[in-house]
């Protein structure tokens, strides 16, 4: 490069010759994620929740179903968050409910998203008959009221935690499927997808490696919302008494105590705040991940 420069004697320093350093992808992603304060905050908070979920029953060994105080005692009097209508400790309930709530929320979300993305991607990419068939199936699931459908599944099989998770997933994946399909329809027309086909790329790799990463931004937002919705579904099912009675979840706590909201606000408010916090954290993390994975937002 230098000899060319001396030849034509352009006194300008050529900006194009500045070296670009090779960035390690995941490290750059991590750096960007950490630079995003709200996302980092959300992530740390989720760590706390996970910690509580795993070690909660050891740290707070009390039985959440045991009567420890006079029913509907205010917070601070004997118990940290007060007691519910059966005199059970709300704080112990929240700590012990963390595990089940988070397992149901994450697994059900993962299953939902997996079904949704698979169906949507196949329908959107292949089109034609495959699209037609998959979309009719999607519509079939869409027209059934999801809660009623989930109730039927749980009632027919059992109120096992696994069945609850599957019931939630099977009834709610249609949103993700439609969203993914729309994104795929849009992106598969782009020239870079045609270019991949021209170099002989297989369909599976085009779907997973080329189109899916570009379709992710709206899907990530849908996923973060899905976590909250799943927790609420679980609450609705437990409110109807359709979940495992031996497992305590935040949704169940709210459901059981809803009659006492005006007399004892703490019975509903504290589990509610816990759900709110989790959904908020997941949303923040999703947002941060989305930005960190988008090369266009990387610092120049």
């Amino acid at each position, binding site marked *: 490069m230098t000899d060319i420069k001396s030849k034509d004697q352009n006194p300008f320093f050529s900006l*194009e*010759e500045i*070296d*670009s*350093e*090779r*960035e390690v992808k995941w490290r750059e992603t991590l750096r960007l994620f950490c630079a995003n304060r709200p996302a980092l905050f959300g992530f740390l908070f989720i760590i706390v929740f996970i910690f509580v979920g795993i070690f909660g029953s050891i740290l707070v060994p009390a039985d959440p179903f045991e009567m420890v105080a006079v029913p509907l005692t205010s917070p601070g009097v004997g118990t940290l968050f007060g007691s519910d209508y059966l005199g059970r400790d709300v704080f112990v309930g929240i700590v012990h409910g963390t595990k089940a709530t988070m397992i149901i929320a994450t697994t059900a979300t993962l299953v939902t998203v997996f079904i949704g993305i698979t169906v949507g991607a196949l329908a959107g990419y292949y089109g034609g008959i495959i699209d037609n068939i998959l979309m009719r199936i999607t519509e079939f699931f869409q027209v059934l009221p999801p809660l009623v459908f989930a109730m039927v599944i749980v009632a027919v099989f059992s109120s096992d935690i696994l069945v609850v998770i599957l019931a939630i997933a099977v009834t709610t994946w249609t949103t993700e499927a439609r969203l993914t399909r729309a994104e795929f329809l849009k992106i598969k027309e*782009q*020239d*870079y997808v*045609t*270019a*991949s*086909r*021209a*170099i*002989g*790329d*297989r369909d599976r*790799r085009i779907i997973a490696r*080329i189109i899916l*990463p*570009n379709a992710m931004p709206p899907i990530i937002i849908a996923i973060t919302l899905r976590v909250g919705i799943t927790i609420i579904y679980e609450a609705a099912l437990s409110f109807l008494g359709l979940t495992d009675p031996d497992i305590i979840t935040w949704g169940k706590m709210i459901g059981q105590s809803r009659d006492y909201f005006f007399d004892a606000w703490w019975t509903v408010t504290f589990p509610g705040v816990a759900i709110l916090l989790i959904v908020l954290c997941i949303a923040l993390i999703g947002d941060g991940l989305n930005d960190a*994975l*988008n*090369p*266009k937002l*990387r610092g*120049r």
Partner: protein
Amino acid sequence: MEKNVQNKILLKVENLKVQFKLKRTSWFSEQSVVHAVDGVSFNINKGKTLGLVGESGCGKTTTGRAILGLVNVNEGKLLFENRDLASLSLGEMLRLRQRMQIIFQDPYSSLNPRQTAGDIVLDPLVVHNIGNQKERQERTDELFALVGLRKNQQYLYPHQFSGGQRQRICIARALALNPDFIVCDEPVSALDVAIQAQILNLLCELQDELDLTFLFISHDLAVIQHVCDEIAVMYLGTIVEKADRVALFNNPQHPYTRALLSAVLTGSSDKKTSRIRLEGDIPNPINKPSGCRFRTRCSFSKEICVEQEPVLEEKYPGHWEACHFRTSKTQASI
């Protein structure tokens, strides 16, 4: 058939037809079909460039994509080195396809925004499982040097490049598998004038260096004139005129070719030069005119043009035209 060693035919296209079915408006209505490419035939000799020129909707892009198998061919034969692509086994076909590549018009949408430039160029090698990681890296370095990009630009993302540089990345990707034949689909139309020159120079250099054969698709006659050995003019899915470069530009025959040439704006043209002005627009390809497709806009149109579709005939040696008249005579009288 001439047996000339120099003019070895690399690709032979025979009566290529591509149809797109439109969605039915109702269950009982007849499904309308667009004849995007309606019986196109040509040969490309090894190391040469065939230009496909025409206005939007004439089927030139579809022709290019059909050759590469990117759209379904309804009828016709494709012979690559005298081997019928349809008769090959899947494995052989994939191997042949590797030798045929494409460069797109819009360098903004033809690069995956989530891959680095290096990964994009490397992708063909990964897909076909060629070489180990070190060899792949060496090949990428080589390709970057070939198209005039710096090695350290491999780690940048497409949005960090200018239009011209992006087109260079596309060219590098197309060259990764050492192809013999490249479809250049309007490779410079989306670029600024100064950058157009850079890319055209690069393409010509690469063609000489690597002995490439091009199918060069463009609507810009000046670009076509600069790079093509032979030119085919398309209108509504068919070739209306085909000749070598000198004959087509110096002695255009078909009324459409002449109108097209006349409509080109040039920097040095006098404002007063009389032009052949075509009336109206290209007809809708769903219900194209009967007989000659061009008759609705042609000033020489007679009854025979309504009734009969002209076929592509060799009117002079090597100069093919699809018209009922010997229009060179009429031109002389103007």
